[in-house]
């Protein structure tokens, strides 16, 4: 697109739906007036896989845990977590206390890895690849730790209805503590890199602002809501598992900067502090972990029979790295599969605030502003620019957008 070709002020720029570097596809239609974005529309559904349908028609509830684990590659703890809590709510099965602590520990490990992954992606989006490499190298430690504890880096298969499938033993504690100490020793450096760096401040301060009032109206959840000053965190409000034994406080950006603006920079602050919070939670869990069994019903056949005979419905809510995940489950006596299963992931509600975040910004800010809600379906592979006045189309690919973003960083650095 050459500036001279512009005849009329408003263009519609569809972005997406596919980009290989990001996790899942979504399409955005931006209306732009010159460089300024005036309106945004979001289209989803490109990866509708019918997972709920499989849970209601093919799998029994125990098999469905593994299906829930595969809802998302990054949040593969919080989905089975919310699912087993929903089934436990519906059937009245109570998991043993030790299992609640193990669940909490691995859920917090997931938060550390997800936030570090996001930090790397965000740095890449503004063309600061040094930080991207640093963040992802640092992330390897938690991935190794998860492999050590659960046997797997990605799909950990730890959850079972009424407990967990693997114990965390005393002999494993020193190795876990070693990794936590590694992150504690690095934390000041990470904080300096992400919060004090001039380039990051220039590209993220006052970009993609979401006001508290809007966050409340649009039901925003997770770090995106907390960065706008909404103190909403399931771990604090209605703590589940071992969080109920710990005093957790929702993190808001004024803890560091003194004010709440609700921009991309504030979202960085919230996620960074949550990494530290997660380390503290794991340490407390290791200290307080009670002895005992890890499963309410170790015999799978008996458990399956209980589930087939159970009647009722329940909800499970868990705080995923991106916000609240909620599962609704309904069981009918005599039916092997679930009668009803509904999943709501945090990005579902967070996408509604994307228009507000992008409006008034520049095209070069789209990658970082959109990535700042940490969408679990993303982003900008190919942009088709349609000139409405002339009916002409030209294609702007992701590399071109990314180049614009880097160019803006360079210009600001001058």
């Amino acid at each position: 697109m050459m500036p001279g070709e512009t005849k009329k002020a408003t263009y519609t720029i569809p972005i997406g739906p596919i980009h290989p570097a990001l996790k899942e596809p979504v399409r955005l239609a931006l209306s732009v007036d010159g460089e300024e974005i005036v309106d945004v529309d979001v289209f989803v559904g490109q990866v509708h896989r019918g997972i709920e349908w499989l849970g209601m028609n093919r799998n029994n509830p125990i098999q469905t845990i593994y299906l829930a684990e595969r809802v998302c590659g990054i949040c593969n703890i919080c989905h089975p977590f919310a699912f087993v809590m929903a089934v436990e709510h519906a059937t009245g099965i109570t998991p043993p206390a030790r299992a609640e602590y193990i669940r909490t520990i691995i859920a917090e490990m997931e938060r550390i890895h997800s936030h570090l992954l996001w930090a790397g992606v965000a740095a890449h989006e503004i063309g600061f690849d040094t930080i991207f490499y640093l963040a992802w190298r640092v992330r390897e430690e938690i991935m190794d730790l998860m492999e050590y504890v659960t046997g797997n880096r990605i799909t950990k298969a730890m959850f079972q209805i009424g407990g967990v499938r693997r114990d965390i033993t005393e002999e494993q504690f020193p190795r876990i503590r070693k990794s936590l100490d590694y992150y504690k020793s690095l934390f000041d450096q990470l904080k300096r890199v992400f919060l004090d760096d001039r380039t990051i401040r220039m590209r993220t301060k006052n970009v993609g602002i979401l006001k508290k009032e809007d966050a409340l109206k649009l039901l925003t959840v997770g770090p995106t809501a907390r960065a706008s000053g909404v103190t909403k965190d399931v771990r604090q409000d209605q703590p589940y598992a071992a969080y109920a034994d710990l005093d957790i406080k929702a993190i808001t950006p004024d803890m560091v900067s003194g004010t709440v603006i609700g921009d991309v920079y504030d979202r960085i602050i919230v996620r960074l502090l949550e990494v530290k919070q997660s380390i503290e939670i794991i340490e407390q869990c290791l200290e307080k972990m009670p002895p005992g069994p890890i499963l309410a019903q170790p015999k799978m056949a008996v458990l399956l029979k209980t589930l087939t005979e159970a009647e009722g419905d329940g909800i499970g809510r868990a705080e995923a790295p991106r916000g609240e995940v909620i599962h609704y489950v309904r069981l009918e006596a005599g039916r092997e599969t679930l009668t009803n299963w509904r999943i709501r992931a945090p990005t579902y509600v967070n996408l509604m605030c994307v228009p507000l975040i992008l409006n008034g910004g520049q095209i070069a800010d789209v990658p970082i502003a959109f990535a700042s809600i940490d969408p679990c379906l993303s982003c900008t592979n190919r942009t088709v620019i349609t000139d409405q006045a002339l009916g002409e189309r030209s294609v702007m690919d992701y590399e071109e957008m990314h180049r614009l973003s880097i160019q803006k960083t360079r210009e600001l650095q001058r």
Partner: protein
Amino acid sequence: MEILSPEEIADSFKTTLRDGFIDAKIHRCEVAVRKNIFSTIWIYVKGEAFREAVEHLCKLQEHPHLAMISSCDLGEHIELIYHFTIYYGRHLEELSLGLRVNLPKSDLKIPTITDIIPGALFTERETQEMMGVEVVGIPDKRRLFLPEDFPEGVYPWRTDEKGPPDDVLRVLPGREPK
């Protein structure tokens, strides 16, 4: 803001909705070692009293958080559950509140609540396209997840004749269809 107990909330719905109120159930459970107690409230209301119930909920909490609308095909009728949470932002005090509405299949209509809670739009659009419940007054009638070429009048979440027909379901090679 005054914080009511689950029983008081159920009573307040009963007095406000009068005939529109059907039933309320409170479910309590204990968590982990400290045994903190958490409550889930289910409020059963009639379809015509639904909007009044949401308006009443807004008096209990300024911005009630609507997590999602879940819907279930129960044969003769369809049940919609609006999963709300109230009293969030405070340690241990949040409550889950589900507003449950039963709609007969002859009259599948529910008023929109996007004027009260703008963020309800996505989940209302999804309920409309997936379950075939008409959301009256919805500001954006387009589909959300289903592709544009998906046939009209077929609703994936339905289990009756309006559900997906057998020929759209692909069976994996070597498997028998259920």
